[in-house]
């Protein structure tokens, strides 16, 4: 089955990204296809490359990067959500004249059209709410 995941919760005040990670792993282990993972609302904060959590704590960003790299997943962030919350790739940092970019490798910034496209072509869209 072809899945799309819509993740909305914050990395630190919800369980959304963790639940979605475990769901994605279970999907892939069972041979399903994940067309796209779309990060919306506060979930885009997971792609902040400047996080430096204590070593004995779960590093959600690294876990998503590993999963994305292993399975060549499209880890797509909503651009409007990112700009509000200060997640910028090089081109957005340049466009808004910021001194740095902070998008973690393995994630890409795109638009809401990617969520809509995924919901039109997938068998199931699974939302992990805020």
């Amino acid at each position, binding site marked *: 089955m072809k899945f799309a995941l819509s993740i909305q919760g914050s990395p630190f005040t919800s369980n959304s990204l963790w639940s979605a990670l475990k769901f994605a792993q279970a999907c892939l282990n069972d041979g399903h296809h994940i067309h796209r993972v779309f990060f919306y609302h506060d979930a885009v904060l997971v792609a902040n490359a400047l996080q430096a959590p204590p070593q004995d704590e779960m590093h959600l960003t690294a876990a998503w990067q590993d999963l994305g790299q292993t399975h060549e997943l499209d880890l797509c962030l909503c651009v409007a959500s990112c700009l509000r919350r200060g997640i910028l790739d090089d081109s957005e940092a340049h466009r808004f004249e910021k001194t740095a970019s902070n998008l973690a490798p393995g994630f890409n910034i795109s638009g809401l059209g990617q*969520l*809509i496209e995924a919901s*039109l072509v997938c068998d199931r869209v699974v939302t992990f709410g805020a």
Partner: protein
Amino acid sequence: MTQLLFILSNPPGSSVYAQEAFDAALAGSAFSNIAMLFVAAGCLQLIEPRLETAAHQRKDFQRGFLALPDYDIQDIFCCAQSYKDHHLQTASLVVQPALLSQPEISALIERADSVLSF
């Protein structure tokens, strides 16, 4: 045509989630036939904002509901029970939704090709 159903359950004001969900619905209308269903505290989004924008930090995105016909979004639904629970009154709303019972909501979800929850 494909039908996308947007289920909106976040209240306006306390977070930016409701506003961002509305953005998603507008984006959806460019690609597909869409319906919006307000449930739980999400039905509070339907109330016309009274405070001056300067008096609170959020943008009054709800006024955008008036433009929904321009986006070809005709299907605006609200859970009848939530409507009642939150004491909504026609006179105070930006747009008047069609009220649906629980079985009607189930049927709406069943008919939709895809459901996006916010």
